[in-house]
């Protein structure tokens, strides 16, 4: 399986366009943020200087969450292409177990998601520091890396489920475009969840990647929030958190760290099981 993972990684990273397109939504989000969204958010909240560090951290947390979805999507694209070009025939005519082949794709998508998330995180920290913010404390970095594992696991399982239902390169292309377009909304990064209609808010609250975004925000915004909200009554902070999607309100319940982790882990278990089931049915002739 390691051999196949190595192959899939080489193919993904050697094709610059795959890498670029799987980061496209992220690049667009980032571009929109620098050019106008950032200013808009900052002005709507406050005009003080500290806001930049806070908002930079907010958007970068969102970008990390989206990266885990779009890069694993790009990685599963290889699986669809291999099948459409009948490259899998070569694997099936060798003494390889089918589950080894499927496992190779799943594992490589996970590894690709992880590598790209780490790269995105490094980039995010550089951007935040250049903008006058501070580096994340080491303990938080370690927590964030742990969260990254769970976040990529959940996103990759979600994409596996989608990929297992598709057969052709063109249908996968359409799915990629749709996901790339709506992911920014579904994770509440283009527009903060508080400014969206209630129906859309409900979708976000049950969309697993939105929970990784919320968790990334809590970790990355901890320090700037302490500075920014120093001396401000805690109900202000709570309503800021609700408005900007650091936690979600489901009825009277407010989601916390443990709840979001639970959403991510259970969605991973559910989607992986469903995805593998669909994949094994697809292979039967």
């Amino acid at each position, binding site marked *: 399986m390691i051999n196949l993972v190595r192959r899939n990684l080489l193919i993904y990273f050697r094709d610059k366009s795959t890498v670029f397109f799987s980061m496209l939504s992220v690049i667009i989000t980032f571009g929109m943020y620098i050019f106008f969204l950032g200013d808009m958010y900052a002005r709507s909240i406050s005009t003080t200087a500290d806001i930049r560090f806070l908002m930079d951290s907010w958007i970068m947390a969102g970008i990390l969450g989206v990266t885990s979805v779009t890069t694993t999507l790009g990685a599963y694209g290889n699986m669809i292409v291999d099948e459409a070009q009948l490259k899998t*025939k070569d694997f099936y*005519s060798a003494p390889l177990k089918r589950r080894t082949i499927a496992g190779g794709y799943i594992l490589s998508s996970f590894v690709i998601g992880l590598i790209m998330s780490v790269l995105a995180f490094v980039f995010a920290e550089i951007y935040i520091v250049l903008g006058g913010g501070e580096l994340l404390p080491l303990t938080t970095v370690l927590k964030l890396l742990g969260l990254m594992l769970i976040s990529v696991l959940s996103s990759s399982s979600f994409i596996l489920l989608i990929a297992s239902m598709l057969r052709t390169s063109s249908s996968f292309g359409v799915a990629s475009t749709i996901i790339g377009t709506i992911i920014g909304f579904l994770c509440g990064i283009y527009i903060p969840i508080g400014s969206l209609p209630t129906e859309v808010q409900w979708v976000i609250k049950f969309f697993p990647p939105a929970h990784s975004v919320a968790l990334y925000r809590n970790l990355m915004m901890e320090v700037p929030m302490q500075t920014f909200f120093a001396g401000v009554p805690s109900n202000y902070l709570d309503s800021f958190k609700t408005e900007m999607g650091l936690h979600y309100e489901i009825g009277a319940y407010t989601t916390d760290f443990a709840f979001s982790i639970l959403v991510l882990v259970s969605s991973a278990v559910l989607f992986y099981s469903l995805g593998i089931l669909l994949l094994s049915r697809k292979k039967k*002739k």
Partner: protein
Amino acid sequence: MDKVIEVHGLKKSYGEVEAVRGIDFYVERGKLFAFLGPNGAGKSTTIDILSTLLQPDEGEVTITGHVLGKEDDRIRSSIGTVFQRSILDDELTVLENLYIRAKFYKKSKSDLKNSVEAAAEATGVTSFINRRYGKLSGGQRRRADIARALVHTPAIMFLDEPTTGLDPQTRKSVWETIQRLQKERGVTVFLTTHYMEEAAGADYVVIIDEGKIAAKGTPFELKETYSRDTIKIEPIDYECFTTQLQESQTIFKTSGGTITIELGRSLDAIPILEKYRDSIKSFEVVSGTMDDVFINITGKEIRE
């Protein structure tokens, strides 16, 4: 006689379409075996079944003594397949492609290196082994595909239309490589083709049409049975000559001023030539070809 492949009563349908409708044949060890047929005759379906990719609806197949459907992994280790389409990875070099595939067969490290080198040498890919597969020419890709099929030194090599889509010169050199592998290394070669000259160069030919075996034999036997030698004559006076032929009740065909007469055997040309020697401007005796065999058996011309 050592049979490496034995097929009995093989059937496969896709819904309503019966692709293979009960075929029997066997392949002898070390021979070059050709499966000849027009597009859609069931060639690729048969090769997919033999290379364990498709499950047959009916029939028994044994490959190197292993029963298909029961000992598939054993079979997979002893066969190498060159598919109609290129299946290696464009983004990787030939060497990387070969190494990754060689590892499918659980080899030790030194074994791995040796078998990749041997396969590369046998197919002549060494000179471009570090170039990306996607940048190669059609002929180079085909050689790399064949090297991949050889990477685990299989007893049998399946090739599905290995020379289709190549220019004539490349086709010839790929074909020579295949023949050399069979002659020098004793690899049993099972290939499908729709090129007559390739079928003519095989040890044994099975002609398949509409999912059934239409004829089988060595190219020589097939030509003996299904094709006739002919004599083509260009007469001095066309009108006069055809009248003469009609009077002697000889059956003939005409096309563009030449007259073609079918012969029982080549020697039958001599009495005809002697009889009409003064009316003949030029003549040619043509021996039967695989094309004639094919047309006579299936009633169709082979399509490219």
